[in-house]
């Protein structure tokens, strides 16, 4: 502010020369810097607060600081621990099967031949297809409960219900999928098979557990996440953008499609990526309904497998190189979710519109 005042002074009196200006600028900057450092370091440097304290208090203060440092570091330790454990467990299988593990579909504990293609394929297909269904529904719901189509109260109730859906444990959804959803949708799946049976994706007759019910239960599981994140993203779009859009005469959906969605797209995409990671790592509901098949099938109506459900089913009873092969599959799953999660953060940071 002083610099500004100085500048306006200079405008009045042009005889002040450039040197004086620079000096004043420097003085201001140094002052501001010192001021700022003191303001900032007052709460964060212990030299200030610990001066003239009894040694006992100093000890408590420093000890508490070190303790919280250690606790914060525990996140890193646990994370590195997870990576090291799973990698070291997978080493044997990595040496034995190499990259062929990713492209072969044999899973034969008797002859000790292992390939994770079925599980990797199943993980990707279930996660991607469930998101293809869940994203439009979730986004539509989010728009519906952020726009003023309904009274605020009613919208809040819908938002609360969708969030409560996220709280239902996946094992309960799995139970529901086995006994209620799967029998209920089987006629529709049979219809799909009869009408579209000539495509490889619906080539087999539905017979209970399968990839298609697993995809549907995944939709139920990721829907609340997508809705909640999209809703937050839409709520954070500045009101001025909306007013500007209405001001130039657009309609509600004109504003949504041309102004509001583009402004919120980075957070929404980030949320979609996070849900993709969640869908790939989801274990219980999928394990209970996907059928855990060891035979490869492109058909969505046939039983399938995912990495997570393979781990859930076999890890407890496995021994020898099967444990290592399962760890190898776990490494693949970890890398997949890691890449997706990092991409989610990257998208949020890079795609943010500056408005």
């Amino acid at each position, binding site marked *: 502010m002083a610099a500004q005042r100085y500048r306006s002074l200079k405008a009045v009196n042009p005889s002040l020369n450039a040197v004086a200006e620079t000096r004043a600028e420097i003085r201001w900057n140094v002052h501001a810097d010192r001021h700022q450092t003191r303001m900032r370091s007052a*709460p964060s440097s212990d030299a200030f607060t610990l001066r003239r304290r009894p040694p006992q208090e100093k000890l408590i203060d420093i000890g508490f600081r070190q303790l919280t440092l250690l606790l914060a570091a525990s996140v890193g330790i646990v994370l590195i621990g997870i990576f090291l454990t799973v990698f070291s467990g997978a080493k044997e299988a990595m040496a034995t099967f190499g990259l062929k593990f990713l492209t072969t579909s044999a899973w034969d504990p008797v002859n000790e031949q292992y390939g994770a293609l079925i599980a990797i394929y199943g993980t990707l297909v279930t996660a991607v297809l469930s998101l293809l269904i869940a994203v439009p529904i979730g986004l539509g719901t989010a728009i519906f409960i952020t726009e003023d189509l309904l009274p605020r109260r009613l919208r809040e109730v819908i938002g609360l219900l969708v969030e409560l859906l996220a709280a*239902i*444990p996946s094992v309960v959804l799995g*139970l529901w999928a086995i006994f209620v959803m799967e029998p209920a949708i089987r006629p529709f799946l049979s219809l799909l098979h009869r009408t579209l049976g000539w495509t490889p994706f619906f080539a087999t007759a539905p017979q209970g557990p399968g990839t298609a019910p697993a995809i549907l239960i995944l939709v139920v599981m990721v829907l609340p996440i997508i809705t909640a994140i999209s809703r937050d993203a839409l709520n954070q779009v500045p009101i001025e953008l909306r007013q500007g859009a209405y001001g130039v005469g657009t309609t509600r959906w004109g504003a949504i499609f041309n102004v509001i969605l583009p402004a919120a797209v980075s957070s929404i995409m980030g949320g979609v990526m996070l849900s993709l990671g969640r869908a790939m*790592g989801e274990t219980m509901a999928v394990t209970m309904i996907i059928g855990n098949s060891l035979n490869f099938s492109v058909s969505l109506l046939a039983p399938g497998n995912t990495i997570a459900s393979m781990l859930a089913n076999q*890890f407890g009873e496995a021994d020898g190189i099967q444990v290592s092969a399962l760890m190898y599959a776990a490494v693949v799953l970890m890398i997949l979710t890691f890449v997706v999660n990092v991409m989610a953060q990257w998208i949020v940071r890079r795609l943010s519109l500056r408005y």
Partner: protein
Amino acid sequence: MSFLTPPTTSAFGERLTLHYDPGLKRNRFNQIANAIAAFFAALAVVPLFLVLIYVLIQGGRLISLQLLTQLPPAPGLTGGGIGNAILGTIIVTLIAAMIAIPVGVGGGVYLSEYARNGWFSRFVRFGNDVLAGVPSIICGVFVYSLIVATRIFFDQSYSAMAGGIALSVLMLPTVIKTTYEGLLLVPQEMRMGAYGVGASRFVTITRIALPAAFTPIATGVVLGIARAAGETAPLIFTALFSPFWPDGVFHPIATMSVLIFNFAIMPYEAQNELAWAASFVLVIMILGANLLARWISHATRS
């Protein structure tokens, strides 16, 4: 007549009236889009109702004192209850909370009160996001290799302790994040005031900052506990299962979530019914915790 109702278009086809015309293309498009959004919202709420109705009806009709206090029957037999699983879920979740809350609150305090924006705090925050994204089954694999396979606790393999530790790994990111964000909301002036009257750093944080941030932290912790109580994947090969009453924390223990998983895929009617009953108890507990968290954040705000 023509000056009473103005013409809707000029000689050049431009619209002259400001009256809403539902026949317009853009207005028809709006109507359709509204309907689609409403349909999607209905579609999103329907599964919740269906799941809740089935859990409440199928599970609720079985609830009795006997069910809540007895042991599950042997396969093929009927009767019995899920008493040991209810107790087990409470024990394992308590162990997880007792580990994750101190560690998570401490980590959150470090991030918001001490950390400058250096590589370490950036690494911890990034690591926290990554840890939150690690699939829960991987947490189970990690704890299995670390604790169960090495028999680190008194030569016991599967144990309630291992299950609790696996769940605490899942809870940790939530607790750190909510503590960190809760403390960021505490106005800097409150800390300044505390320093001004001579409080030390430790006193300022524990007596001023943390109590001021109690509401968001408590909300996050309750939600974290609720999520952990429903988790199954990290427990199936750490806490395992047991048809008996809990026998100390260093032995395998029954939990409701694993009971649902095990009994749902059994071919016996009685076991399937117990799975529904356990779902009922679990869902009531978790929805109760969620509503409690919501109530905490509302009650203290107003």
